């Protein structure tokens, strides 16, 4: 009966997760700031308006004088549903004492709103750079079409799109330690095969993305990184090396009412890079 498991694995492995292209439409873009004026709104609009995806967008600005707490902000956001919210960290909170936090507004926003949230750095110098280099990040990239679709759509003309799938070494080591204690399993074979299989699925998925984007966005240069490592360190290197103009990642976790663990870590860590949180 051992062969039963073998063939089941063979056929399960043969099933691919193909990429389905669907261009996101950004009709209403809402910029939320805690400033009492619209200066930041103008900066953001100037920065993004020439990107093809924002071509038909209607822009609106919510400044700090229109809300006092999350409830009042939420009411405003619900009254005018947006396709994208652009905001920054620590709305109406001290940057000094809350350095390692997104702030309660942004934290809640990423979970309560259905639309993506573009988080801009506090330093306005970000707006000088066009969105030429976009990195899409996931701990399990396969099947996350929305992530790739947004990343591909928001990248500028002739831009670069880097698709990253990094397996967390710490998690892998933790499981391998358990496997090494099971005498029935050859741990060296298990290490090699599991690692190979973990990286095979994203590789196939990225191949499918390349194939589709070649038709849908032929100007885009698609690159990929599929590897294992310590996530934050690897992403830090990656962002520095690629001079990323935008990081696209998922913030919602289907199983819990809190921010996706990798999304939160990266959002807190990379404060100088604009982040698109889906």
């Amino acid at each position, binding site marked *: 009966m051992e062969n039963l498991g073998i063939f*089941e694995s063979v056929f399960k492995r043969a099933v691919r*997760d193909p990429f389905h292209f669907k261009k996101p439409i950004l009709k209403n873009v809402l910029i939320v700031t805690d400033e009492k004026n619209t200066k930041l709104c103008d900066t953001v609009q100037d920065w993004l308006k020439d990107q093809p995806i924002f071509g038909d967008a209607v822009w609106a600005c919510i400044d700090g004088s229109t809300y006092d707490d999350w409830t009042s902000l939420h009411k405003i956001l619900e009254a005018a549903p947006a396709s994208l919210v652009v905001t920054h960290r620590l709305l109406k909170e001290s940057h000094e004492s809350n350095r390692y936090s997104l702030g309660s507004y942004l934290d809640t926003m990423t979970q309560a709103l259905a639309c993506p949230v573009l988080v801009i750095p506090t330093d306005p110098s970000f707006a000088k750079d066009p969105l030429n280099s976009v990195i899409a990040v996931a701990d399990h990239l396969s099947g996350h079409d929305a992530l790739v679709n947004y990343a591909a759509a928001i990248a500028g003309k002739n831009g670069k799109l880097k698709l990253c799938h990094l397996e967390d070494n710490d998690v892998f080591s933790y499981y391998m330690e358990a496997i090494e204690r099971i005498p029935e399993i050859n741990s060296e074979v298990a290490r090699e095969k599991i690692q190979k299989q973990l990286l095979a699925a994203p590789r196939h998925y990225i191949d499918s993305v390349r194939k589709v984007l070649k038709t849908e966005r032929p100007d885009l240069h698609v690159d990929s990184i599929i590897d294992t490592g310590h996530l934050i360190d690897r992403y830090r290197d990656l962002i520095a090396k690629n001079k990323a103009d935008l990081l696209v990642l998922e913030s919602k976790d289907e199983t819990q009412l809190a921010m996706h663990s990798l999304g939160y870590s990266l959002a807190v860590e990379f404060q100088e890079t604009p982040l698109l949180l889906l």
Partner: protein
Amino acid sequence: MSAPAALHSVSSGVTFLHAGLLAMMVIALAFEEKIHAKKSVITGVAAVLALLLGAVTHVLPESHGHVPFYIGFIDWGVIAVILGSSLFVDTATKSGIFSWLAIRITKMTEGDPYRLLTSYGWMTVIFSALLNNVTAMIIVGSLTTVSLRKLGREKLLLGFLLCEGLLTNIGGLLTLISSVPNIIVGNTAGISFFKFFIVSAPFVVVSTAITIWMAARIFGVGRLANNEERAQAAKLIETFDENDGIESRAFFILSWIVFAFFIITLATTSVLPYIRDLGIGFVAMAFGVMFLIKVKSEADQTYRGVDWDLLLFFCFLFIVIGVAEHAQVLDLIGNGVLKLMKLGDTAGPAALLWASSIASSITDNIPLAAVLSKTMSKISDPAPLASTSNYWWAVIYGANLGGNITPIGSASTLVAVTIIHKNKLDLSFAGFVGKAVPFALVQLVLATIYVFILGKI
């Protein structure tokens, strides 16, 4: 016709004692799952007890030379076919040829449930015929599970798996090496691979078509209703990559070529000079060893994949039957068989076919085939049974198709039930019988008519 000639004088008490031991072994094999014992252990214990009992009751022959007499009881031709085929199929499977073919066929159906059932049905029959019915059920059953889940049609899984399980035993009738009863009876009767195929193919084709047609109606497997459903299903089924299981393109191509040669050689064994003297056991072993060259540095891994339980089961079973033969138990059974045969040329084979099918539905069909073929080979009056006799076919069809009445009737239906339970589908022993009996009855009626026609040709 008369009962087989006795080897020497044995008291009826001793014969009944040995018959009781044989019956106990058969009952233990029927309850193999309940007593949590492998087949080889059951027959191993029976062989030890039979030899001890044989020694005590003085029915055993003496050993000549260095080879113990009981080693001579083992039919090494059968063992060679099973071991050689196992080595060959195991290595060929690793090349990815079967998974490639299975996925290609799946994609050709474009995800339409009726076309899937038809394709998987025929694929089960072909794989059962060319490999063996257990491997066929494992390959097609695994693919069925994955593809129906992918298509979101889990509700059809039970019907598909049940139909495939039933078809393994029909496919098992196509060639001499498709099932163990075929190998045993075919070897004893002297039926060649080619002859077996020619005789059995028409029945297999008709029976398969009817079984698939019945399954589609009973389990509600229909065509997709509209273009939207068809497009959606085709899109989902296209996500299978048939090349995934191929690790080496060269080995893949080589495997197809060698596999084709294997089938051609088996089919022509009886006419190939030198090879015909060595038999199909040699052919299976030769091709098995040839494939071992490919995995020479890790041949031990392949040896681990051999079904040693099955091989030892056979060795012990042949010893039990050998002792039973010397204790004249086979003569006793032979008298029963003769009573059936005396019913005439029409009713005789039919009675033997139905009796074999009922017996093989409640216990393993392998000991049944082994005992019956041995018994029938001893019948010599007025003349030994010719290889063309439809009595041999009655046993072959009965032993194989009886496996479709209960889930324990054959190894492949047991695999089907295992896959069904693995997928958390509810199917009890009685539930299986209730669903399978209409199919089995139709197949047995067809077989009876077919065996009758064979007797007239």
